[in-house]
Each structure stands twice: as C-alpha cells, then as structure tokens.
C-alpha cells in the first residue's frame, strides 16, 4: 500500500533468491513474537507477524473474578504501563457501579498514569536504542527510569505491578512529602531526557538511518486504525487526553505532539516529546491537586452492578488509545471484559511498512510502531 514492492522482486522465481528468516521468538530483535520475514538479498519482500506466544487469556479469566480481584490480573499484559491498562477498566467499573470518585483521587490517578507512561516509554526507548545498536541509549533510559520507578514505589508500594487503581479511587493516599520529591525527581528526569537529544535524536547517523524508512502516510495511518504515537507521527492530531478528556484532564493544559513525516524517526521521536509533555502535566497536577481529602470511596467487598448493561471506556496509554469494554449481568463477576489494545492496532501496519524495506530497517520500523507483544496477545 504505502511502500511499493520494487519492480523485479516479484518477477524472479521464488525458490531462487528468496530466503525465509524466522525473526523470533528466540531472537534479540523480536520480543515475544515471531516475524516471518522473506528477504531477497537485503530487501524484505514479505513480512508476516506471528504473535500469540504469550497469550494467557486475560479476558476469559476476567469473567471468573469479581470487579476488584480482577485488578491484579488485568494489569499483567503491560506491567510497565500497569496503571494505564487498568485505567479504562476502573473507569468502566465506576460507571457501572455509579461511583463518584473523590477529586484528590482523580489527581493521584493522573500523576500515576503519567509517571507510568514515562516508565513505559523509557523502557521502550531503551529497547529502541539497543535495536539500533546504541548501547548507551539502552543503559541511560534503563537507568533513568529508576527515578520514576522509585517515585511509583513510594506512591504505591510496588515497583512494577502497582495494582493501585481500584474502582472508587486509588488504594492509598500519597505518602508525606511526596509532592516535593516528585517535583524534584521529575524535573531532573526532564533534564536527563533532554540530554538524549545529543547522542540519540540529533545524532546524524540515527537521523539518516531512520529518516524515510517505513513511511506511514496520514491516510494509511488512519486507515489501518493505528493509534497513539504512531498516529500522531503521521500528522494526525489525536490524543484522547485532549479529545475525550477523562478524570481531570480537562482541567489540565495538555499539548499534543504531532509530527508530519510518518517515518521511523518521527515515530520514535513523538514518544520522547510525549514524555516531556508528561513531565509538564505532572507539574501542573501537583500544583492543582487538592492538598487533602479522601482518595477512595468505600465499597462493599463484592460490589454488584444493577443489571445487564455495558460500558466502553478508553484512555490514552503509553502506546495509544486503550479501550475496555465491560458487560455486566448483575453478578459479582463481569459478564465480559474486552480489552482493545493499541499494540495490536499498530501491528497491523507492520507488514505493509516492511515490504520493500531493507533488512537493516526491520528492527527500527518494527519497534518504532510502539508495539508491546504481550499486550497484543493478552
């Protein structure tokens, strides 16, 4: 569609020049999936992504647990972004149960969500760095992510799987003196990630390597249904935090980062810009947050919904819009929970982006799609 097959690659006999490469699952550049790549010399003729290696049936499991005990499970698909993947579920359950969340809890959720977005993006960036052979860009984000993990750990008591959001608010209040520590570390974090520009984003080798590779046009980006940074890198100004604000995002000043090019470089740069924006949001939130107040509505141990009804909520996660569709039938367990994950939407674009690309571009194009295999498999 976008990348035309070079003339001639289709002409010669298939058995002669084409080699089938299994990239994955035991491959440093695949993640928990397999890309069946057919190459003609240095050019990729066809690419067939084969996800499903880490499928664990989260959606089915959710039908056997009540609304609260689902929480530690549903965050598993993206443990680095665990707050954001819980967010739509929690919002949905709240609507089903008709709970009004305290104001302070909403702000705490925003902080946790933005911090988690940064944690996820740093992890993604680290892998992007190592995919491009930039070992420093692996180590720096992996190290600097520690700042935010430390904050999250202070806030929720766990370093990775927080299980922090519950219907009705958050599990616990902020620890004392958290605002100061948070502000300090987030400021330092922002300073750090701006330093990445010199070695990574402004590095001429990186720019020349990722520019004009895997170009996803605006039209196709919308057509494939991509979301998040992939969509914004193709020039579509779409951010759920702005377009469909949830919780308190409508009170915050959120700037959407959009790039026109739609190539790997743009797709890799938009998340980085988003991180800087996240730092801004956290600072705003810390300012506007009520200094005290309730953070959680007391619920019955096994809350029940009123009757057969469904709700669809979506939020902007680190990878794009993450939706959760819950059907309830007046029992303690949900009837159906469906996660609509951004990774899978972005993956759809991959075969079309890789066709006709060079083999050397495969990692950068693949990972610039902001794809997390486990989330796609659920």
């Amino acid at each position, binding site marked *: 569609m976008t990348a035309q097959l070079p003339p001639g690659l289709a002409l010669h006999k298939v058995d002669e020049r084409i080699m089938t490469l299994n990239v994955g699952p035991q491959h440093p550049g695949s993640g928990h999936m397999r890309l069946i790549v057919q190459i003609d010399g240095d050019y990729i003729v066809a690419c067939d992504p084969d996800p499903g290696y880490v499928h664990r049936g989260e959606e089915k499991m959710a039908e056997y647990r009540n609304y609260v*005990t689902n929480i530690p499970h549903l965050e598993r698909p993206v443990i680095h972004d665990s707050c954001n993947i819980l967010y739509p579920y929690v919002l949905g359950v709240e609507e089903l149960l008709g709970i009004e969340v305290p104001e302070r809890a909403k702000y705490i959720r925003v902080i946790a969500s933005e911090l988690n977005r940064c944690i996820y993006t740093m992890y993604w960036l680290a892998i992007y760095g190592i995919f491009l052979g930039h070992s420093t860009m692996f180590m720096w984000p992996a190290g600097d992510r*520690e700042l935010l993990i*430390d904050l999250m*750990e202070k*806030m929720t*008591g766990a370093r990775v*799987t927080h*299980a922090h959001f519950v219907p009705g608010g958050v*599990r616990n209040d902020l620890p004392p003196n958290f605002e100061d520590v948070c502000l300090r570390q987030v400021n330092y974090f922002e300073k750090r990630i701006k330093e990445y520009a010199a070695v990574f984003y402004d590095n001429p080798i990186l720019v020349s390597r990722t520019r004009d590779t895997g170009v996803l046009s605006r039209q196709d980006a919308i057509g494939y249904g991509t979301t998040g940074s992939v969509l914004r890198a193709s020039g579509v100004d779409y951010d759920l935090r702005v377009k469909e604000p949830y919780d308190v995002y409508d009170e915050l000043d959120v700037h959407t980062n959009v790039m026109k090019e739609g190539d790997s470089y743009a797709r890799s740069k938009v998340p980085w810009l988003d991180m800087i924006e996240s730092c801004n949001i956290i600072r705003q939130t810390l300012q506007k947050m009520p200094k005290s107040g309730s953070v959680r509505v007391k619920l019955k*141990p096994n809350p029940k919904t009123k009757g057969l009804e469904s709700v669809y909520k979506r939020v902007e996660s680190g990878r794009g819009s993450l939706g959760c569709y819950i059907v309830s039938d007046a029992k303690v367990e949900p009837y159906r929970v469906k996660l609509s994950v951004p990774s899978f939407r972005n993956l759809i674009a991959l075969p079309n982006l890789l066709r006709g690309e060079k083999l050397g571009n495969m990692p950068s194009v693949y990972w610039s799609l902001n794809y997390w295999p486990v989330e796609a498999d659920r």
Partner: protein
Amino acid sequence: MNTATGIIRALNSGIKHIATKRFTLRYPEEKLKFVGDGYQFDPSTGVGIAGLKGRHMLFHDHCTGCQLCSIACEGVAEAIAMVKVPEEQKQNKKSIMPQIDYGKCVFCGLCVDACPFYALYMTNDYELSSFSKEGLIYTPAQLQVKPFVAQDSEIQISDRGATHG
C-alpha cells in the same frame, strides 16, 4: 556540515558523561529506603497507608480466623491458605490462621485491604529467596516475626548527576 557538528555534539556528550556520577545501586551492599514500615490499611476509612508491599506480617492477637484474606486471594493468586495453628499459639476460636505461599503471592495487597481487624500488614522485607519451594511457605509463626530491614540509600540529585547515596 550539519553532520559533522552532530557527530561532534554526540562525542562531546559521551565524553562529558564519563565524568558524570554513576547512577547504579549496588544492591546487596546498598538498599533503597522505602516509605514507612510497609503497606498498611485502615478499614475504618477504607484507605491504605503508603508503603512497600513486601512480605506480610500477621498480628496473632488481632486475627480472628475469618478467612477474608484467603477469600480475597482466591481470585488473585490463591497463595493464602488457612491452617490450624498449634494449641499453644491459639489466639482465636477457630484456631486457624493464614499461611502464605510466597511462591504464588503477587504482592497485590488485596488481602490487607480485606482484613477488617488490623491483623495483616505488609512489611518492607522483600528478600524472600529460598532454595526450596517449601521454604517459601510462611507459617503463621513465621509471619508473626517482624523483619529487620536496613534500608538507607536514597536518590541524591546534584549538579553532576543523580546517584544513590
């Protein structure tokens, strides 16, 4: 000459970082300092108190053997089993108390949320490794012991970079 300046900038940044303080927590020697004594829950307000969700601590004198923690865990990890405690340690009528298998526990803390009697808290102790699966099963007697944790390292931010100090 954009390329040349870019390359020089990158090299410069790299060399600059050689003189930056390193940001590595030397874990066994240093340990991060956590907030408070661990995750606790106040059933009266329904809000937790921030802290690390480490291994549990069981207050025998508060535990009534109501099994709420075990029920809360059923949907999550099924790590909590209610076991009979020996006669001499008997504190409640049913003489059953939670026994936690840390091979299964996911440290979500929902059991703490479930306990209405202030009997189950989580502590800062997270070094639970063991050579056998049996060693990971903590009996009520083991859960009663308050762990000693020396955690003093915190992230220090200065002009020359952040360190764990």
